[in-house]
């Protein structure tokens, strides 16, 4: 039985998916399997690739169903096919190093209870997703930490850090979850592994509530990629974000709805931001499963203002601020509206221009990079991080 199942759901981005498959297949380790769950309108591209070009017993292709699945349903059917003791999901424009299986093995030997493993992630925008200056990132530390669950829950459910993205750190997306934990989650949460359309954050919510032991390695083992067709491309432009939100809602019309009358931010499209989408997810989970949300409104207001400080143009700023204002005005009868006081737009800023090393992470100006894909970027970045062999052997002494 494979130790790790890497799930690769994809929809209509076959060329990225193929490059991701090839990058993962380059790895010589055998202790993993990859399930490619094709949800594309045209199933022939990946079918032909698997039958004519590519041959690797570690990879399996699930053909598209007769009708397009929502993302959450595509994830659900993928997990049902997983045979590995551990499971990880990545996007079709991402990368994961299968050597992460040796990290999983180390943590299992050290901590028999571990059922959720997180790691550092590099980030990389594909060359077609750089309408403005963009930065790739490489975390360079490699320590292991075992966080306190209540701290994680405070950060994710109640947004205690007040930043535009709550730091989850654990989840099946760019993390590894023991399959037995996913089965526990399925039994406890509506008979499904995944419910909410924002699958990554809803899974993080469940994992940090249900896991017996979570272990995190700072060393990166995967790359969060973003191509022009990705949802994360919405972070580069408000116009793209609006279009992505509309498409996303259309494709997730069935099942759990993002729109909730008690959290009106999720109904808005113009000026929508990823901050709102994540908040709507953690809010849904907390409300549905009875999580205490004391402090969330205040923290979310801080996060909203943090998001506004990162906007690049006056137009984006105006749209996003208006969107937040409308949401706060409607939310809970306007009770929290006074907390949202965004600073004025700070002018055209050098957002994503400041490459360099900050807090042990290297930020790279992507326009100056020669690498073209997340897989290539990972190999590039590995030159500045501790080798996997040192990390999994617990090496403590290095020479300089």
């Amino acid at each position, binding site marked *: 039985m494979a130790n790790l199942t890497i799930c690769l759901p994809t929809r209509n981005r076959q060329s990225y998916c193929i490059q991701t498959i090839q990058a993962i297949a380059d790895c010589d380790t055998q202790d993993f399997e990859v399930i490619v769950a094709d949800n594309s309108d045209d199933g022939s591209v990946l079918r032909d690739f698997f039958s004519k070009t590519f041959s690797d017993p570690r990879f399996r292709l699930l053909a598209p169903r007769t009708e397009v699945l929502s993302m959450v349903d595509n994830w659900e059917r993928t997990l049902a096919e997983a045979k590995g003791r551990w499971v990880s999901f990545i996007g079709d424009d991402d990368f994961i190093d299968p050597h992460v299986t040796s990290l999983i093995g180390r943590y299992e030997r050290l901590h028999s209870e571990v059922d959720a493993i997180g790691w550092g992630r590099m980030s990389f925008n594909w060359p077609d997703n750089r309408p403005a200056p963009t930065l790739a990132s490489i975390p360079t530390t490699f320590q292991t930490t075992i966080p306190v669950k209540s701290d994680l829950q405070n950060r994710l459910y109640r947004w205690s850090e007040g930043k535009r993205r709550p730091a989850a750190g654990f989840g099946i997306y760019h993390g590894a979850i023991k399959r037995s934990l996913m089965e526990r989650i399925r039994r406890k949460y509506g008979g499904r592994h995944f419910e909410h359309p924002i699958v990554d954050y809803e899974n993080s919510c469940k994992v940090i509530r249900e896991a017996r032991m979570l272990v995190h390695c700072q060393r990166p083992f995967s790359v969060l990629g973003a191509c022009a067709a990705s949802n994360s491309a919405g972070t580069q432009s408000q116009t793209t974000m609006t279009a992505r939100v509309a498409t996303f809602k259309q494709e997730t019309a069935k099942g759990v709805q993002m729109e909730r009358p008690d959290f009106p931010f999720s109904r808005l499209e113009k000026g929508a931001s990823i901050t709102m989408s994540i908040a709507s997810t953690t809010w849904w989970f907390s409300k549905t499963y009875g999580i205490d949300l004391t402090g969330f409104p205040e923290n979310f207001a801080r996060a909203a203002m943090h998001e506004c400080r990162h906007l690049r143009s006056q137009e984006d700023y105006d749209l996003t601020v208006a969107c937040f204002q409308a949401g706060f005005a409607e939310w809970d009868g306007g009770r929290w509206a006074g907390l949202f006081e965004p600073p004025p737009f700070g002018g055209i800023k050098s957002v994503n221009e*400041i*490459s*360099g*090393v900050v807090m*042990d992470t290297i930020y790279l100006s992507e326009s100056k990079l020669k690498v073209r894909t997340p897989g290539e970027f990972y190999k590039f970045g590995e030159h500045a*991080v*501790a080798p996997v062999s040192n990390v999994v052997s617990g090496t403590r002494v290095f020479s*300089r």
Partner: protein
Amino acid sequence: MTVLSICIPTRNRQTFAMDAVRHMLRSTRQDFEVLVADNSDNPEPLRLFAADVADSRLRVLPPEPQPLSMRANWDRLIPQTRGEWLIIIGDDDYADPEICEVIRVATAAVRLVDAIAWGRSYFSWPDARAAREVTVIPTGSHLVNVEKKDMMRKMFFWEEAKDRPGCPFGIYHGAVRRELMERIRSAFSNTYFEHGNVDYDNICKTVMMADAFVFWERPMSVFGACRASNSMGLRDQEIGRQRNATFFAENPDKFEADNFPFPIALGVTASIGHTIESFKQRYGIELKGWEENFISACAKDCETCVDRAQFETRKAGYAKAIKAWRGAAALSRFKPEFKWRPGVPKFLGTAENLLFFDMAMGDARSAAEFYDVLDAMLFPVHLLETRLTQPLRTAEAA
């Protein structure tokens, strides 16, 4: 107006020089020039290259009928430059024309500045690299006003020296005002460079003569080492012997200082020691209190050895010289330890404002390509001005 002249003296390593020039001329800046002083046996490659490039920012000084010493080849460069500021690099090195921007910001902040330096970065060309090689770069981006007296202490008193003095100011991988070079010429024997160890000869003079120093922590150039370079001699004893023999055959000027019994072949510390001592002796500069720091640097030079036998040989050589120089008592300061631990993995990542990484990152094939990798992950030069949250202290105030 030409702000900066990037000077590249070269001898029989034309392809390396061409690679650097080609990359520099990609810049859209028009305020710099590249001046190549060709001292090769065959003038054709660089002549044809310049004709092919046909860029007014590039000029090549053809070889003289007889090969020049390195000192003479450097010396003939300076009168030919048009820039207000000058830098010299080796033909297997690289320097970013964006140094012009650093000059602009530094001169705006410190009116009298005439010597600018930046963080160091090192690259071994693939032909000179054995296996995995880890290099280190500073990750800071502050612009710092450096006090002259601190540089005097570092250079002439070897304060905080490793195997060499930690003073980065000089024309080699640093920018100096042309006017400073003229003052140096006037003050010191009517020539720009006197000693065969041209880079350190110039650092001595820059430290003595410059009015104000500004240092940017971010690397703007790359010290390259190709297989044919003199720096390769620091890594391999046999290559070192060959390089020394060639160097002294081509550079007949007196290299050794008087009453300084350190054979030059011992290592880089001995060689730099001779350069500084020669300068002091020639110009009657007498200093006391630097000897102990120098002896510590000799020990550190031994500790750079990655081969036990080489370490022992170097250690014995330095010990003999120190004893002959200052007596057996002086050896109490000389305690080198063989520190090479091949079984211990090299550190990769960030620590103490440094980034340690495998030199193969980005698969750079040349010093210029290596600089491209650095440039992607270091603070952007065009935002340097934003680092000046408060005015730098001026030299007058200091």
